[in-house]
C-alpha cells in the first residue's frame, strides 16, 4: 500500500514520458515478481487465518489439509478461556505507553532538531545507544526493582517499561520529521510574535501530524507485540495478549489450530489500527520524500 501510493505520481510521470511503452515484457516480469513476493509474504498470514478455522487433527496433517469444513470450535475455546482481561491489558499498555512516548518524544525531538541544544549529536546517539543493549540484560534489575516497589504484575509498570523501550525510536522518527520542516515557516511565525507554545501548537504539530501518527502507530505495534517484558514482569493481573497466546503451546498434544485462531484474534486490533491510520501512515512515512 505504502509503495503504491507513494510511487503513484512518479509512475504517472513515467507513463506520460514513454506513452505506449507500458506493457513491455520487462514490466510484466517485474509485475509477476512483485505479485510472487507479495503472496510469499502474505501466505503465512493467510495460512494462520485458515488454520484457525480447522479442527486440531486437520491442522497438523502432512500433506497439509487445504479443503475442510470451517469450524468455530477453536474461537469458542479461546473465549472460554477468558480472553478479555488480556485484551484490556494489552490495550491499556499500548495506548498508555504510546501517549507517554509521544508526549515526551515531541519536545525532545524539538530540542534536538529545531532548537538544537548543545551537544545534540551526543544526546541523539545516547538515545539510540539505549536500544543497543539487549532487553534480557536489563530484565533482572527491572524485575527486582518492580518487586521492591510492589509493581510486579502491574499494568502501569509494563506501560512505563514500554515507554522507555519506544522512546528512543520515537525521538529519532519525530526528529526526522521536524528536520524536514521549512525554516522559513517557523521564522515567519516568530516574526509574527508567536510564542514557543503557539509555534508548537499551531505551526509545528499540524505540519508533522501525519508523522506523529506514523510514530504513534509504530510504537503501539511494538508495545502490542512485545513478549519478553510481558512474560517476565506479569503473572495473572497484568498479562497481555502475547502471554495469552503462548499459553496454548503444549509439549503433549496438538495445538496449532487453537494457536492460529488466537493469533488471528491478537492480530486483528493491530490490523484495524493500521487500516484506520493508513492514509496518515503513508503520508507520514513518505513525508519529505518528495520535495
Amino acid at each position, binding site marked *: 500500500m505504502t509503495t503504491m501510493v507513494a510511487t503513484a505520481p512518479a509512475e504517472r510521470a513515467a507513463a506520460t514520458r514513454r506513452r505506449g511503452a507500458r506493457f513491455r515484457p520487462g514490466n510484466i516480469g517485474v509485475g509477476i515478481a512483485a505479485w510472487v513476493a507479495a503472496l510469499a509474504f502474505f501466505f503465512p498470514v493467510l495460512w494462520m487465518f485458515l488454520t484457525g478455522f480447522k479442527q486440531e*487433527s486437520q491442522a497438523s496433517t502432512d500433506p497439509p489439509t487445504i479443503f475442510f469444513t470451517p469450524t468455530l470450535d477453536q474461537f469458542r475455546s479461546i473465549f472460554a478461556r477468558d480472553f478479555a482481561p488480556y485484551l484490556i491489558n494489552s490495550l491499556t499498555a499500548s495506548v498508555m505507553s504510546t501517549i507517554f512516548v509521544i508526549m515526551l518524544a515531541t519536545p525532545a525531538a524539538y530540542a534536538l532538531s529545531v532548537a538544537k541544544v548543545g551537544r545534540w549529536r551526543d544526546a541523539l546517539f545516547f538515545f539510540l545507544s539505549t536500544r543497543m543493549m539487549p532487553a534480557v540484560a536489563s530484565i533482572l534489575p527491572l524485575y527486582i526493582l518492580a518487586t521492591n516497589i510492589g*509493581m510486579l*504484575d502491574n499494568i502501569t509498570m509494563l506501560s512505563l517499561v514500554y515507554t522507555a523501550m519506544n522512546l528512543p525510536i520515537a525521538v529519532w522518527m519525530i526528529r526526522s520529521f521536524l528536520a524536514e520542516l521549512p525554516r522559513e515557516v517557523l521564522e515567519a511565525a516568530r516574526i509574527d510574535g508567536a510564542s514557543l*507554545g503557539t509555534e508548537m501548537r499551531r505551526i509545528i504539530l499540524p505540519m508533522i501530524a501525519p508523522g506523529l501518527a506514523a510514530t504513534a502507530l509504530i510504537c503501539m505495534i511494538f508495545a502490542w507485540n512485545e513478549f519478553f517484558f510481558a512474560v517476565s514482569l506479569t*503473572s495473572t493481573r497484568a498479562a497481555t495478549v502475547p502471554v495469552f497466546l503462548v*499459553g496454548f*503451546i*503444549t*509439549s503433549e498434544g496438538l495445538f496449532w489450530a487453537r494457536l492460529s485462531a488466537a493469533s488471528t484474534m491478537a492480530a486483528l486490533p493491530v490490523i484495524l489500527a493500521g487500516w484506520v491510520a493508513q492514509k496518515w501512515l503513508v503520508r507520514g512515512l513518505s513525508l519529505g520524500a518528495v520535495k
Partner: protein
Amino acid sequence: MAGRSRSRPARAVLGSALAALLLGTTACAGAGVGGQDGRTVTVATVANPQMQDIEKLTGDFKKDHPGIDVKFVILPENELRDRVTQDIATRAGQYDVVTIGTYEAPIWAKNGWLTKLDGYASKGGYDVADIVPTVRDALSYEDGLYAVPFYGESSFLMYRKDLFAKAGLTMPARPSWQDVANFAAKLDDKQGNVAGICLRGLPGWGEVLAPLNTAILTFGGRWFDEDWNARLTDPETKKAVELYVNLVRQYGEPGAPNAGFSECLTAMGQGNAAMWYDATVAASSLEDPKTSKVAGKIGYVPAPTVKTEHAGWLWSWALAVPETSKKKDAAWEFVSWATSKDYMKLVGQRLGWARVPPGSRLSTYEIPEYRKAAAAFAQPTLDAIRSVNVKQPGLHPQPWTGVHYVGIPEFQELGTKVSQEISAAIAGRQSVDDALAKAQQYAEQTTLKGGYKK
C-alpha cells in the same frame, strides 16, 4: 491573540484528562493488589490437555471453597520453568501452586524452594498411600514428599495391530530393540506413506533424549558412573545410540530431526507410522476417534528391552507449593482437590472417562467406568509405571533419582547440547561416533565445573 486565549482551556482539559488517566490506572492497580491479598491462589501451569481440564473444572472447586479464588498462569514448559525459578529465587512470591516434573521435584526440594507436603497430605481423606509408589518416590527428596502427581506417565511401544496382521507378524509380549528394528524394516512402506516406526529426533533434553536414554539404559550404557565419570563413549552406550539413530534414519518418519512428541502423535494418529515408542499418555489421544484415524487398531506392549527387565521411563506432572507462597493453606486446598480421588470422578462424569488423568492414583484403575473407557491402554499404562525403578533404572547404580534424565540442575543445558549432536547425527550431518565424542566432552566439562567429580 485568539490562539492564546483558546489555549488555556485546551491546556486545562488536556491536563485534567492526563491526571484522570494516571489516577485511573493507579486506582485500577490498587484494586488489583487488594484482590491479591485476599485468598486468591495463583497457579502456574503448562498447557497440556489435562491441565486445560483443571481450568475448566475450577468452577466446581470455587463452589466448594467459597473463600478461595483461583487464577491460572499458563505458559509453555521452558518459559514456565524460567518464570517460576526467577520468582522463587528473588522471593517475589507470585505463585502459590506450580506445576513441576519429576526432574525438578528433588532438585528444587534440595534448594529449599518447595514446601514439604507430608504434614498436609497425611490429614483428612487425601490417602497418600493411594498415589502410585514409583511416582511418589520420584517426587520425594530425603523421605519428604514435595509434590503430588497430577498425572503420571511411563513409556511403551504402540503398534498397529492391523498392519502387523496384514504382514503376518506377531508382536511378542516383551519385545527387544532387535525385534523392533526387524519389524520396522518389514513394515516400512515409503510408497504407502507409512514409516516403519516413529521415534523422536527433535533436539531438547525432554525430546529426543527421553526415548533414547531408556534405550541406552537397557543396553547397559549410562551417562555417568557412581563417581560422576562421563560414560557416553562406552561400547554399550554407543550400541544403543547407533541402533536408535540407524533405525530412525532408515525406517523412521520423514523429517525425523524435527519430530517430537506432537509430530509423532500426528503421524501415528493419521496412520502414517506402524510403530511408535513414546509416552503412555499418547494412548488416550490415539484412542479418541475425534483426533485419530487409528482408534481401536493399536496394541500396547512394554518398552523394548535388551539387558534389563524393564525399560520404560517415568515422568509425572505434579503440583507443588513454593516455599515463597504466602497462602500455603489455601494452596494446599487447591492442590489436594486437583489430585484427589474425587477429582478423577469429576473429570469422568463431566468431561468423559477417557480424559481422567492417568498414572497418579492406584484407585483410578479400579473405577469401572475408567477401566471400560480406557480398556485398550489402562492396564499397560499402570504396569509400565509400576515396573520402573527410579533409583536404578539401568544395570549400574547411579548417583541420582530418575530414569531418562540426569538429576542435576546442569542437565538442562548439558542435555540440550547433547541432544543437538544426536539430532545432527539423525539428520546425517555427522556420525554417531562424532556425536558421542562431543557429548562425552560436554558431560566431562559439566561434572568438572559443577564440582561433582572429586
